């Protein structure tokens, strides 16, 4: 499936900043299930984007804006060809062996209720896959997913369980937290879901199953990622994959992810070599 994506993020500064440095994780990489046809990153400011690869192999860019800065806008735009792999990941960039993803973080650290939930689910070390599917179905039942447009703090695992609501990222925290409790390496994924006209930014989880490898689990929708999913970044929690980390406040995003091609004008402009 051909997916086109436009992701706009703004962050405000009050009072305006003298200068500000920020990092964006807004460039997807290709793997067996997705091929990046074109991708651009735009900043409506005069600055240099310093590309780098973070510890997990995500492509990120750091830049500094000279002040006064009152608002910062980044736009990522591109076209991706995806394929359904029934959620199984192949050909991804891996910088760590799976055991690293047994680490809990501040956002996934289980509280009593999460521990109780983990214990209540039938678990057999011989069949982690069934456990992960049960976990996914249970979370779909227990947590009512709420959409978010503001890139505000994603709830930690325990909070999401307590309140029974959370965005896709909060559900992913809970999923990874419980999986790790059973010694199943699990990680946090940011990306896009191009489903009908409800295309959005989305978080889900991946878990590592011996003999198969990494498998995606979107517990918020109780399904494994399909060709409607575009994978953007990977980390231990939502903070590791945050599309923008800066020092401003009131971060908002506007995402369009839908089936189709970029308009001819954009595609042509992007294909022009710039020296």
């Amino acid at each position: 499936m051909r997916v086109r994506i436009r992701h706009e993020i703004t962050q405000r500064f009050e009072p305006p900043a003298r200068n500000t440095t920020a990092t964006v994780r807004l460039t997807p990489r290709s793997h067996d299930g997705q091929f990046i046809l074109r991708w651009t990153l735009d900043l409506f400011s005069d600055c240099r984007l310093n590309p780098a690869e973070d510890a997990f192999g995500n492509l990120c860019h750091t830049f500094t804006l000279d002040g006064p800065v009152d608002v910062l806008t980044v736009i990522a735009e591109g076209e991706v060809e995806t394929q359904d792999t029934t959620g199984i990941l192949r050909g991804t960039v891996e910088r760590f062996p799976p055991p690293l993803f047994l680490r809990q973080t501040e956002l996934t650290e289980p509280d009593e209720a999460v521990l109780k939930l983990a214990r209540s689910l039938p678990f057999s070390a011989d069949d982690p896959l069934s456990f992960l599917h049960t976990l996914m179905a249970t979370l779909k039942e227990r947590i009512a997913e709420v959409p978010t447009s503001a890139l505000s703090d994603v709830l930690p695992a325990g909070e999401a369980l307590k309140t029974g609501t959370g965005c896709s990222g909060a559900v992913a925290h809970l999923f990874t937290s419980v999986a790790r409790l059973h010694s199943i390496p699990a990680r946090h994924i940011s990306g896009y879901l191009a489903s009908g006209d409800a295309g959005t930014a989305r978080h889900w989880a991946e878990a590592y199953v011996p003999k198969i490898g990494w498998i995606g689990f979107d517990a918020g929708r109780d399904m494994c990622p399909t060709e409607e999913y575009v994978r953007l970044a990977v980390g231990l929690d939502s903070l590791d994959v945050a599309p923008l980390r800066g020092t401003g406040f009131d971060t908002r995003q506007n995402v369009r992810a839908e089936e189709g091609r970029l308009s001819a004008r954009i595609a042509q402009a992007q294909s022009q070599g710039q020296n």
Partner: protein
Amino acid sequence: MRQTFDEMSSSDGTVRPAYETLSQWLSNVPQDVLAHRRKEAEFIFRRIGITFAVYGEQNAQERLIPFDIVPRILTKEEWVQLSKGLEQRVKALNHYIHDVYSKREILKAGKIPEELVYKNPAFRPEMNGQRVPHDLYVHIAGIDIVRTDPSTFYVLEDNARTPSGVSYMLENREIMLRLFPELFSMYKVAPVENYADDLLATLRSLSPHSGHEPNVVILTPGIYNSAYYEHSFLADKLGVDLVEGRDLFVKDAVVYMRTTEGPKRVDVIYRRLDDDFLDPLAFRRDSVLGVPGLMSAYQAGNVTLTNAVGTGVADDKAVYSYMPEIIKFYLGEEPILPNVPTWRCREPDHLKYVLEHLPELVVKEVHGSGGYGMLVGPTADKAQIEAFRAKVSATPDNFIAQPTLALSTCPTLVEQGVAPRHVDLRPFILSGSDKVRIVPGGLTRVAMKEGSLVVNSSQGGGTKDTWVLDV
């Protein structure tokens, strides 16, 4: 009854040669003169403002660390042996950290359990595959040493993050020189005053660029930090700028310092700020003490952070128990300084032993420091032991246990006169790109209470001047 080794006199009362002069001097000086000098010392400490805040106390006010005016003496032979062992230890620590963040050979060889690295909160994924200037991570180490008999110095703990206390080592010597000049004419004591020069030379040698005089700064969390005195003291001694996070900024992966003459590039940051707070864009996002974008400059190789980020992966107490293997693995040598035998509660048979022998053991949290959260079995009451039994059983991975060592004692001036008190030693090891530097001596900490083995200043311990004899 444990036999305690006293560094001044042996059990039959004979004074060891190195202490002879001091012992004689002590018996000749009237008690009230000693008491008077001690008051004087306290007065000087107060006047220069060298104080220490104790965390977790209701009204955590600043207080003085008690200073004991009786020096501790080490012979040159003892020191030579010690410093060889320290250098070896720090080399091994640097190899280990480099390996853990690159090829992870030691894990592949099965010498260390994977989870000790991957699940260690001090392991920083951000450092994976990240080259640091000169492949050195622990530029300033504080290795805690205890002694149990004439020839055995054990390493009790490695401090590879931001070891503190060096200002006390320097101040103690200065005060001793001022109060007891006559003693220094009787003994040839190796100087420690060149520590500041050594530190500056080390920091400069770590600059990521050659060609120009590197700009070195000390980054402090600010005046509310318990070690702020030391930060400002060192900046003063080194003649470098003491900065807070807000004095620095990053532009296009280069760190600058705001000055009245405009931005000035920074090459080496001796940071006394924990990893978590260094950069809100990479670590704790609520950190107001750090510098946004600092990690991007670090990763681009444009600035050296001292110590490197993520060195904590080498100095927790669980990793400590593997240090002998770590030394053998990377250096192919036997450890010169032995480890204290350690039970890892993460291992079921060790845990069983520990739970059965709690009243005899010292139990410590793997990530604890400053003497917080530890159990000293022989001096604990039943309730404390039971509380620890519950804690250790619930989260065995978080604890290690060691036998209660008979720490050596040194003569110390207390209410009743001069009496033996338990001591440890923290020497400071500087690793530059050119060489390793260790000033002779270190910080001797002394438990002021009779029989007490806890020397931590946060637990009421005091300090002493440490003399390494130069003959």
